């Protein structure tokens, strides 16, 4: 037994020493690698910047470190610019074979490698070069990959990706803010496909479509969104309501006023906020009523909405009758913020 313990102690001491040694070596090697890369980066920076600015002569790569440095610089700059400069980034990435390499990486067995490749393509490639392969991996089983792919498709302006993006969002495969942001970047092209999905069977799809239409902000979709205000699902109703507020079309005010009587409190609250954004004062009295008597979440939203729409009226009321705390808060803020 003692022998076992002693042996274990010795073995572990060796392991400790090994780890300690590894730490030192890892650090030293890592440092050196960082230094050479940094030096290459500094050396090649003017050439890369010159290329992006329009110079004829591409930066020369003498060795693999140079290649890495150029890739690194291109990715950083590619993320920061758009327009002609971004096109130049894509041209160089293509010429040096970087795009091809990354597209190859999209087939890697490791999820994180696919994700990193998909991510970088958004910073480096052009739509023509990368949209197809990126769309192919939108159905990847790894969420990091789908998120990276969606992000890049948005950045590349790949309008052909709108439908698979929406479907991915609705099925929950795709992270919401990332997918939504991509669709925002794809803009008006997306709104036609989204409008079609307002009548889809699945509740989540309808809700997602409504929300995204609000973010894209196309006034032409107002009527279709108004119809969705009658949807059986409260989640769909609230997102359509918010969307109408974001779009801001005053033509929606009558319908939103009706939504102020929705059975679900957070839908009522959303209607109040949307009415303020749409700028319609006819609903003022109804808003005051809600702000006085309704539950916290709706009363709060209604008070703010009323104060936004008719500030003088609210201040006048504040001096007259006994207001709910929500209206008091709104009135006080009006005084302060104006």
């Amino acid at each position, binding site marked *: 037994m003692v022998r076992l*313990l002693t042996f274990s102690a010795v073995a572990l001491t060796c392991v*400790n020493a090994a780890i300690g040694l590894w730490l030192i070596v890892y650090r030293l090697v890592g440092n050196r690698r960082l230094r050479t890369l940094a030096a290459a980066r500094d050396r090649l920076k003017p050439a890369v910047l010159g290329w992006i600015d329009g110079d004829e002569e591409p930066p020369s790569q003498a060795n693999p470190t140079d290649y890495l440095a150029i890739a690194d610089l291109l990715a950083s700059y590619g993320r920061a610019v758009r327009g002609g400069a971004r096109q130049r980034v894509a041209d160089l990435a293509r010429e040096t074979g970087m795009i091809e390499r990354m597209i190859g990486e999209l087939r890697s067995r490791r999820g994180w490698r696919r994700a990193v490749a998909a991510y970088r393509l958004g910073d480096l490639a052009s739509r023509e070069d990368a949209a197809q392969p990126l769309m192919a991996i939108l159905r990847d089983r790894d969420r990091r990959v789908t998120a990276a792919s969606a992000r890049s498709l948005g950045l590349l302006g790949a309008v052909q990706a709108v439908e698979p993006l929406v479907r991915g969002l609705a099925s929950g495969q795709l992270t*919401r*803010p990332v997918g939504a*942001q991509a669709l925002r970047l794809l803009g008006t092209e997306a709104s036609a496909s989204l409008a079609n999905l307002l009548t889809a069977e699945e509740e989540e799809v309808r809700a997602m479509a409504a929300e995204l239409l609000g973010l894209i902000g196309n006034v032409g979709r107002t009527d279709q969104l108004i119809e969705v205000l009658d949807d059986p699902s409260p989640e769909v109703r609230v997102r359509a309501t918010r969307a109408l507020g974001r779009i801001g079309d005053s033509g929606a005010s009558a319908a939103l006023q009706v939504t102020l009587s929705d059975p679900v409190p957070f839908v009522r609250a959303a209607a109040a906020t949307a009415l303020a954004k749409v700028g319609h004062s006819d609903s003022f009295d109804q808003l005051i009523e809600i702000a006085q008597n309704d539950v*916290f979440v709706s009363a709060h939203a209604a008070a703010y909405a009323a104060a936004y729409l008719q500030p003088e009226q609210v201040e006048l009321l504040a001096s007259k009758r006994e207001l709910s*705390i929500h209206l008091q*808060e709104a009135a006080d*803020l009006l005084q302060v913020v104006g």
Partner: protein
Amino acid sequence: MGTLVSLLSGTVIVYFVVLNLTYLGFTLLAWRELVRYRHSRESSPIDEVFRSPLTSPVSILLPAFNEEAGVVDSVESLLHLRYPEFEVIVVDDGSTDGTLAALGEAFDLVPVRKALQTEIGTAPVRQTLFSRKHHNLWVISKDNGGKADALNSGLNAARYPYICAVDGDAVLEQDALLRVMMPIVENPNVVATGGIVRIANGCQIDHGRVTEVGLPKSRLATLQVVEYLRAFLVGRVGWSAIGGLMIISGAFGVFKRSVVMEAGGYSVRTVGEDMELVVRLHRHLRQQARAYEIAFVPDPVCWTEVPEDLTTLGMQRRRWQRGLAETLWTHRRAIGQPGMGSLGWLAMPYFVLFELLGPLVESAGYLVIPVAAALGVLSAEYLLAFLVLSVVWGTLLSISALALEEISFRRHPRSRHVVRLALYALTDNLGYRQLSNLWRLRGLIDFLAGKQGWGVMNRKGLNRSRDGIPSREAA
């Protein structure tokens, strides 16, 4: 007598073997998770989340008590966080110094009536103030009620779906809120998240940001650096990976507001309110069989100062152990309870057995083992070999934590810092560990003796948040 001693010493030894094997398990688990996380960072869509209007807004709650010296800086640094939409609610818990005045002057505060939720009772609110300078800053001035009470007041005032509880003296990274919200962004089932807390002693801090990472000069603080690395990198990451994370640091943590309010807010009856809340959330959601997750982001998001003298450190550890005991006692029914999942059959029993009773067993061991050797129950060589083995093992765990930190974050840029940390990792088993055990033992005794409140400082002191490291090993 001989058999008793033999039994006791046998128990102690078995205990240690099991404990250290679990530490090893956690280390390996953590290694896998950290590598995974590091890879994810390279493709993390954090800029897109920052730019997206769909990213959920957050209400940041900052409880403050007698912090006129640093509160304005803390608030400034919070206001400059990189996040699309958020509000900052400072809760002045009845400060008797110039905290409120300092805030009023720096931020142009005016009294404004505010609608507060009333579900959770708190000490009376005196005044609600709004900043004319920053329209997303509110200050609530209330009667003193302690940190948990102040947080509850903040909960009542918050209007966004998520709240972020922070400590006044915590220094945050600019992307901290973004990073800590990523698990929630990716999965709406996540109801609470936290990140890694690092030690600010020895670091350069400018305008509320850490500009240069350094090691503390103080030996005690450096020992704590190694300890925190082990507790966070190995402990939290490990537990989070198996769904048994029971603590989110009070220095910086994000919670889903509706769930916290359903569960009743923070408890004012314990000194370990951060851990108690998380355990209560687990129970509440499991009882209702709702799908949920409590996630840990293995990213350094927050820096705090640690005590550099033995007295303060000792008091802190005593208090933490007492808080741990209070929480485990409050939720004792969950231990082994069906329906409580890994919380019931793994996490809580583990914490009771190894974190709570650990100091007891270890201290007993220091007594029993030499007696056993003296009586001849254990041979002297056996004893020696065992001692050496345990020291070497402890070192292994510490140095593994360092290695994990090296592959993941490299926040210690200077090589000589790593060397210094390695040396401390080698020696923290000789003295510091034993001291820590004594403090924790006293904390356990305090609990058993029915001690309440914050002791000398009573409930008035908000102090440094207990970031809930129950043990110096893998927490």
